[in-house]
């Protein structure tokens, strides 16, 4: 039996018990090995604890322990007979936008954690808005510490109802959101079904993670592939070989398909889809391939192959949503670099538009700020030096996303999304 791979992210605010939940998932799926458990037991005894503190399994760097904070996204790995999991564990406080955006950008599902005693808090609304903005296809609301509210069905139903309202206003479909009551500390409904929640008939967290579809929306979208590298063997028997290497960003490609090369606009036909293991009858989003074309066209890194009958638009003017991730503020008029697919081009950020505000019960887009600071999410107009083939992020994530880069330091300043993927309906 082949096992597939689910990439998912966890998000939650401080003290929601996220480290314990992640530790519980690793521990109960037997993904933790003897020497790691012994290390945790030693550390727990040193701290004077009676039972092993599972959160120590995901304890961070010494640099973080010294400051008592979690700085950065950590990646965890576990597997069951059904599936393998890559978990992006995103810390909730310092630089929460940066961390949540990073974790969500590669996730097919996000587990959002709340404390049953506190219910939905401001941090929950921020995280949910980022997950909606990044178009994470599925969300699990894990209501943790249900042992501390005496497994009270009424308390949990009220939180679930409030979150359903929030999710709907952020644009999540009803079937994209699942609520699961858990206690990471004692293990209720994480891997093992709890006898203390007889009123809960849904799946445990792990059962849900094992059964959700892993194919993202990219698979059903029209074909897109950025050319990464041109493969030219320059050997006698392969003298005329020109292969365009890339990872299919969206859709499916097969020999005979008509494609357009962008931004130039030349049309041609796919003659072969190759891998080192031989030609494929077709290949779909996520697979790295080498595409051969019927016509001898001069194509280089940075160009995009796309379905000829459903091509992205080519433009040097972008209306976009920016997640500002750097300490250095963004002032309108800034000259930066923009990386889209395999092309990096100079960009001027024009006007900054509305900013996402979390002052009200439901996140709202409010008046344009003078500049953007760290953690801000706002609309902006950009002008690029080279024309780019783009889709709205809401339609195709891969051709709708970009980075903004600081030219002198090379640092990544912002995550950019083409269009306005988050529309809030109060």
């Amino acid at each position, binding site marked *: 039996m082949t096992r597939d791979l689910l990439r998912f992210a966890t998000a939650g605010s401080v003290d929601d018990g996220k480290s314990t939940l992640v530790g519980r998932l690793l521990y109960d799926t037997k993904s933790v090995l003897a020497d790691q458990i012994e290390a945790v037991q030693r550390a727990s005894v040193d701290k004077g604890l009676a039972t092993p503190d599972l959160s120590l399994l995901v304890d961070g760097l*010494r640099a973080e322990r010294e400051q008592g904070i979690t700085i950065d996204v950590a990646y965890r790995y576990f597997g069951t007979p059904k599936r393998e999991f890559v978990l992006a564990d995103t810390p909730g406080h310092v630089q929460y936008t940066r961390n949540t955006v990073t974790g969500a950008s590669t996730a097919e599902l996000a587990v959002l954690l709340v404390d049953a005693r506190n219910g939905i808090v401001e941090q929950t609304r921020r995280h949910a808005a980022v997950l909606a903005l990044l178009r994470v296809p599925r969300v699990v609301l894990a209501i943790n510490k249900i042992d501390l509210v005496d497994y009270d069905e009424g308390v949990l139903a009220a939180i679930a109802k409030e979150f359903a309202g929030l999710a709907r206003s952020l644009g999540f479909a009803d079937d994209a959101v699942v609520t699961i009551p858990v206690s990471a500390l004692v293990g209720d409904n994480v891997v093992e079904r709890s006898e203390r929640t007889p009123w809960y008939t849904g799946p445990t967290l792990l059962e849900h993670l094992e059964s959700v579809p892993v194919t993202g929306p990219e698979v059903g979208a029209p074909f897109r592939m950025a050319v990464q590298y041109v493969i030219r063997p320059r050997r006698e028997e392969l003298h005329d070989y020109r292969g365009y290497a890339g990872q299919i960003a969206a859709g499916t490609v097969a020999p005979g398909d008509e494609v357009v090369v962008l931004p130039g606009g030349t049309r041609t036909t796919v003659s072969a889809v190759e891998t080192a293991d031989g030609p494929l009858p077709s290949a779909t989003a996520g697979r*790295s391939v080498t595409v051969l074309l019927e016509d001898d066209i001069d194509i280089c890194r940075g160009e995009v192959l796309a379905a000829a009958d459903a091509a992205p638009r080519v433009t040097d003017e972008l209306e976009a949503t920016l997640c500002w991730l750097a300490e250095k503020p963004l002032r309108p008029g800034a000259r930066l670099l923009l990386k889209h697919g395999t092309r990096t081009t100079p960009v001027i950020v024009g006007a900054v538009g509305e900013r996402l505000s979390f002052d009200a019960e439901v996140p709202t887009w409010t008046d344009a700020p003078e500049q953007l600071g760290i953690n801000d999410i706002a609309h902006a107009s950009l002008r690029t030096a080279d024309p780019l083939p783009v889709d709205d992020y809401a339609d195709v994530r891969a051709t709708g996303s970009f980075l903004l880069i600081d030219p002198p330091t090379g640092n990544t300043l912002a995550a950019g999304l083409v269009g306005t993927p988050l529309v809030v309906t109060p």
Partner: protein
Amino acid sequence: MDASVSAPTLDALDSLESEAIHIFREVAGEFDRPVILFSGGKDSTLLVHLAAKAFAPAPVPFALLHVDTGHNYPEVIDFRDRLVERLGLRLEVAHVQDWIDDGRLTERPDGTRNPLQTVPLLDSIVEHKFDAVFGGGRRDEERARAKERIMSLRDAFGRWDPRKQRPELWNLYNGRHAPGEHVRVFPISNWTELDVWRYIQRESIELPSIYFAHEREVFRRDGMWLAEGPWGGPRGDEALEKRSVRYRTVGDGSCTGAIESTATTLDEVIAEVTASRLTERGATRADDRLSEAAMEDRKREGYF
């Protein structure tokens, strides 16, 4: 598009392979002088295999760099040379011994040379002007690696600053660096030890023979089975005895222990790894057991 052609979905290994190939091609497209760090171990052998697949039918457009502690297993050096020959690769070797001979490095009292690899590595990066250095590090190995980026910037001193890491978004890697800086690249970041073994089996990748059970004269030190060698054999009360062992990692002979094993085939190794109750580094690498933050400290100093 022809909707009747069914597109096979990717299983976990396909997905990890495609991700690694994408990373190799990004580096080939954006850097001038990339190099693959190669120890002859299973992870770096896997890197070379994936690089070959990424650019087929053209040759791999990178050199290999082996930082050689001199404390080797002859089987591994033999394997290395055959692999380089078969794939037509260019191999650079930085001999730690040369740095000791000319005084740039001093032998440690315990004879271990793993920590001594950092200086020859950094010197070689400068000498050859390498700007991207591929390593076989995996995030599941150790917790300092769990937060490592796939593309990780190092300053002119080779140092890693976990507080200054760039956010890594979607699969848009930002490898921009100033002259003198370089980027470490980890294409198999998201693989687990079991993924590596399953993929080696699926692809029939050849490995050095020391990964499979064999009879060897070993002695017990700090709970590990070490082999006799130029790094110093058994001391006073340590007795040599013949055991059936295999290695789970290839490292400096002075601090890389063997495990008792009868697994002589890939199937048996995978069964053993699946049932194993110790992580590969915890079981057999003395250098990682020195302190709780051992790997974090070495990474910050420029280790790979």
